[in-house]
């Protein structure tokens, strides 16, 4: 009898442990991690492969990432060929039960090439610009994709995920109104950015990207392109050079010295700079950086 009771207690403990076990989520980037944490709440444990301080185009395929994914229930990827490195990590994980969700589903990609693409154009993404998370409207689509994915593998968590999605949408809409008001002084302002990471952000907030420090996406700055850019900045009286924190400031400094423009570190991902701790504070940080520099100018 004692043995039977012990066995039953043990079984109940196992069931309780299983019931409390969190859904193991892995995301390609820290932005997806932030949104997945919001939607999943206490039911999920989320790990991101790329951190906000590193260039998401160049993530090395490490066996330790494969180990992380081998323990995962679901993987959320950016898609549009930004995180093309996710495929060998997922393959290397050998995880046959893994659900993979492409968060770009339902996004309308900007700058989708209409003609044949080749490497003479630089590191062009044939399916369109992949930095779509920087438009808050697309963050809602990401959140919906994440909710759909979580419901697929954990239908019992439906009330929580759906409630969190509603909360996320409502918070996003409220913040969007604030962001729109805050960025009114920036509307129509021209800036230069290092890489073409900002078309979605600039569309959302009315900023104009006049040029790039890179001559072509993913290509190192050249003296001739830098000279052209200096002329452009002088001619159009552009005041801001936005730079993702993981790029070198060598060429931006040369341009800034020649033109008097100010270099601003703009984090394109959560964790890219102190203060950008989740998706909402990421957009706050970018706007605040632009406003501060804009006002100083």
């Amino acid at each position: 009898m004692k043995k039977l009771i012990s066995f039953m207690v043990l079984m109940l403990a196992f069931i309780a442990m299983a019931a409390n076990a969190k859904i193991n989520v892995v995301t390609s980037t820290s932005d997806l991690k932030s949104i997945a944490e919001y939607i999943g709440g206490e039911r999920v444990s989320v790990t991101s492969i790329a951190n906000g301080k590193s260039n998401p185009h160049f993530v090395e395929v490490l066996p330790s990432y494969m180990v992380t994914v081998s323990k995962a229930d679901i993987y959320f990827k950016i898609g549009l060929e930004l995180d093309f490195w996710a495929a060998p990590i997922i393959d290397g994980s050998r995880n046959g039960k893994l659900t993979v969700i492409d968060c770009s589903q339902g996004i309308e990609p900007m700058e989708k090439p209409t003609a044949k693409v080749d490497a003479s154009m630089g590191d062009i993404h044939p399916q369109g610009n992949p930095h779509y998370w920087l438009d808050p409207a697309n963050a809602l689509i990401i959140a919906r994709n994440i909710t759909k994915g979580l419901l697929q593998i954990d239908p019992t968590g439906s009330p929580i995920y759906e409630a969190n999605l509603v909360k996320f949408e409502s918070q996003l809409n409220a913040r969007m109104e604030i962001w729109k008001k805050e960025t009114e002084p920036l509307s129509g302002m021209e800036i230069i950015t290092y890489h073409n990471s900002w078309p979605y952000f600039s569309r959302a907030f009315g900023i104009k990207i006049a040029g790039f420090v890179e001559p072509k996406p993913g290509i190192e700055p050249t003296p001739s392109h830098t000279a052209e850019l200096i002329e452009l900045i002088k001619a159009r009286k552009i005041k801001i050079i936005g730079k993702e924190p993981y790029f070198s400031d060598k060429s931006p400094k040369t341009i800034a010295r020649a033109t008097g423009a100010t270099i601003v570190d703009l984090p394109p991902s959560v964790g890219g700079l102190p203060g950008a701790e989740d998706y909402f504070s990421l957009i706050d940080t970018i706007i605040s950086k632009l406003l501060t520099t804009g006002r100083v100018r």
Partner: protein
Amino acid sequence: MKRVFLTILLINIFATISESIAQAPVNPDISFIGDMRLFGYRNALSDEYYNKLKLNFEELEIAGSGYLNPYSRADVTLGIGGTGGEIDIEEAFATLVRGLPLNLQVKAGQYLVDFGMLNTQHPHQWSWIQRPLMHQWFFGEEGLKDIGIDVTTLIPVGNNALTISANLLQGDFLLGEDAGDIDHNMGGSGRISLFSSVGATSSLEIGVSGLYGQSEPDSNRWATMGDFDFKYKWRPDVYHSLVIVGESMVGSRKIDGVNGEETNSSFGAFSAVDYQFRRRYNAGAFVDYSQMPDDNSLYQIGYGAFAGFSLAEETYRISLMLRQDDGKDFEKPFQTVILQLLWSLGPHKPHQF
């Protein structure tokens, strides 16, 4: 002439296939990698190279890879050119990547065997350009390549990755270039490696391997070999990295000695340091040593330096390597200079550790 025609024909066929299937939703990735070299030799051992300058199109590598279905993928690498000027299947294998128990993956076909870390890599991945002496002397110019079945498992050890692999091999890898015509027994190998992230920007992998194969078919002699390898990589950003690799191997086999059958144990080692100091520039140095597999009194030691410039990652790369070699019975050390132009046409590949 016939060879040139055949090569052009093959390139055209692949280009046509690539062009047509690139539009399709189910498309293998196809890449072309060209390796052109200008060699300069001083005091080389053979008349062919003695104090000469040579320009070679070393190899054109054609690589295709993709998923066969949701569970498996295939990889094919053909080499055209090289010393023999022939079309060579460098690798052609299918891998069951997921769905197997115990975190297993099974690879079958012809492939570079994971006996040590360096052997699985193609030479265009190396800043030091040339295959280590120990690979060339023990296994031939292309390293240890064989037909086999490779079963691998990945075991999480905390956040570290322990990888264990076992290979059942056709077994002709120690028998020389004409081994295909010789009746021989099967061989085998195994490797255990531990990968660990050391802080946020560094990683270390350490591996040990063992190998068993027939070394002489007529006398039914066998060789056993062991290998130790490590790789340390520090990569704080895309502008800087430091890679330190080291590998040593020892092989033991029965040979005909002065007093009848004897056991000969030979040793080889390679180590390199490669520092990327700007986004497009790197430089480093290496040491390369090997004894002859069947006579440990004969050895060669090489050391040298290299520098590289990559126009846009791996798509167009120029490397310069200076090397000096010496050895037992060498009249005097000989020097080699190689200027290499490496280009890669095809889809952007993920960067592996």
